């Protein structure tokens, strides 16, 4: 095949896909701000996306906090480590690792589940059936998932932050023989409200990305079981990449000054 044709094909596909995704996102936002909302479904999705992701986020945060404490201790100034470890664990978890790892974990779990569920509904004509029953599929399927993810991700990440800091505390006090009172004091003294809120704002955006990508891939899946599998993989990959990219943009916006 002509190399120019290949490049042209890639460009057209990329532009086409970006356009479709933008239109999909815009339609989702338009339906979110336009009542009515299905609150019962939003509650159900909050349980699925938030509550059921709690164990995986809690475990990830706990071990990340612990590993962070060890790395700072072994890699840094061990004589002055008691204050540094507590501070960097708290800042690292609340500003970056909590939201990013929490987002990636939920992307792997919830985005895949959303894409698989909606993809199966698409290929078995259940989404068409919704339309014939005078129910807007966007309002019924997409909006509850997006709203639930935007609300629950910050809550999930907040719990993850607490557990991550606790992980650092456990390793610091049990393995590195830090004084527990001093560790807690250092954590509280150096941690600012902005550190926590910036992480929570980030996680809310990550929640939006996770739900929109899961819904988008599921909505546009085709070709039976293989298509649903492809949609699931794409949902996880694209939402993970977008989370990392959005994290960079938001970090530079929040902390550049």
């Amino acid at each position, binding site marked *: 095949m002509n190399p120019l044709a290949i490049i042209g094909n890639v460009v057209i596909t990329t532009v086409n896909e970006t356009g479709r995704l933008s239109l999909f996102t815009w339609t989702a936002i338009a339906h979110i701000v336009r009542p009515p909302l299905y609150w019962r479904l939003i509650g159900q999705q909050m349980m699925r996306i938030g509550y059921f992701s709690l164990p995986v986020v809690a475990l990830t945060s706990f071990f990340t906090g612990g590993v962070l404490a060890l790395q700072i201790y072994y890699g840094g100034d061990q004589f002055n480590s008691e204050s540094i470890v507590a501070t960097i664990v708290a800042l690292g978890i609340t500003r970056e690792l909590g939201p990013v790892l929490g987002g990636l974990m939920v992307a792997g779990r919830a985005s895949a589940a959303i894409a698989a569920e909606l993809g199966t509904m698409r290929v*078995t004509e259940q989404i*068409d059936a919704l339309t014939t*029953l005078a129910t807007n599929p966007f309002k019924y399927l997409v909006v509850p998932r997006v709203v639930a993810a935007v609300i629950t991700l910050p809550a999930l990440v907040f719990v993850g932050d607490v557990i991550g800091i606790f992980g650092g505390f456990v390793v610091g006090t049990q393995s590195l023989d830090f004084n527990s009172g001093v560790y807690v004091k250092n954590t509280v003294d150096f941690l600012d409200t902005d550190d926590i809120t910036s992480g929570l704002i980030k996680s809310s955006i990550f929640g939006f990305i996770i739900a929109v990508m899961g819904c988008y891939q599921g909505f546009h899946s085709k070709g039976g079981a293989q298509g649903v599998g492809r949609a699931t993989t794409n949902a996880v990959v694209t939402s993970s990449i977008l989370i990392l990219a959005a994290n960079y943009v938001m970090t530079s916006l929040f902390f550049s000054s």
Partner: protein
Amino acid sequence: MSISIPSKDVKIELKKVHKRFGKKIVLHDLSLTIPKGKSLVVIGGSGSGKSVMLKCILGIIRPEKGSIKVDGKDVTRLSGSDREKILTKFGMLFQNAALFDSLPVWENVAFGLIQGRHMKRKDAKEIAMEKLGRVGLTSEVGDLYPAELSGGMQKRVGLARAIATDPEIIFFDEPTTGLDPIMADVINDLIVDSVRDLGATALSITHDMASARKIADYMAMIYKGEIIWAGTREEVDNSGNEYVDQFIHGRADGPIQMDILKP
């Protein structure tokens, strides 16, 4: 080609509807009229454009050209609440029932009442149970999930869902596909009874001639995205159209050639 009926008795009218996917033309200036309160069956082979035609009428697929009128109102460019309003007139039985597998059977049947008509769940459940009874299913089935039902039962639940809102128009997409001959006949009888009881206008697409003969008042044949013949059920055997003759007798030889590789 259209059935000749007075304009006041027309429920749905398609005029020169054109739809293509990429280079493939699926509907080629398709025109068809569906009389009010009658059952029209569109026959045609796989890939002839039957399902796309139904989806165009429902607004799931938007045609590039042509008009589709329901009760005299053009629905091709409707969106949002206007489309939802028109869709409250419709009920549809899908080829594979397309039941919502996350909901119990009764909620599947009551879905259009709860979501489309904003009825209270308790009242909607009562109607759902009554409709399940009308298609020969007991109230115990109402609490099961679709995955726990046989294919025939799923089809009956799909029919109960299609008639739950007492629609003016009911579409049947391959209603007997995948069923044994006895269950297929049971479904055919239920379709005939439901349409008659509701006084609804029915549009069915099928390639099952036994089903078509049983449920049709009128028949039309679609071939390569065009309606090539339309008439009453009785006229189909003397249509004088060689495509129709080949199709209804299921002959491999004739003007319709299948794209198959021969050894």
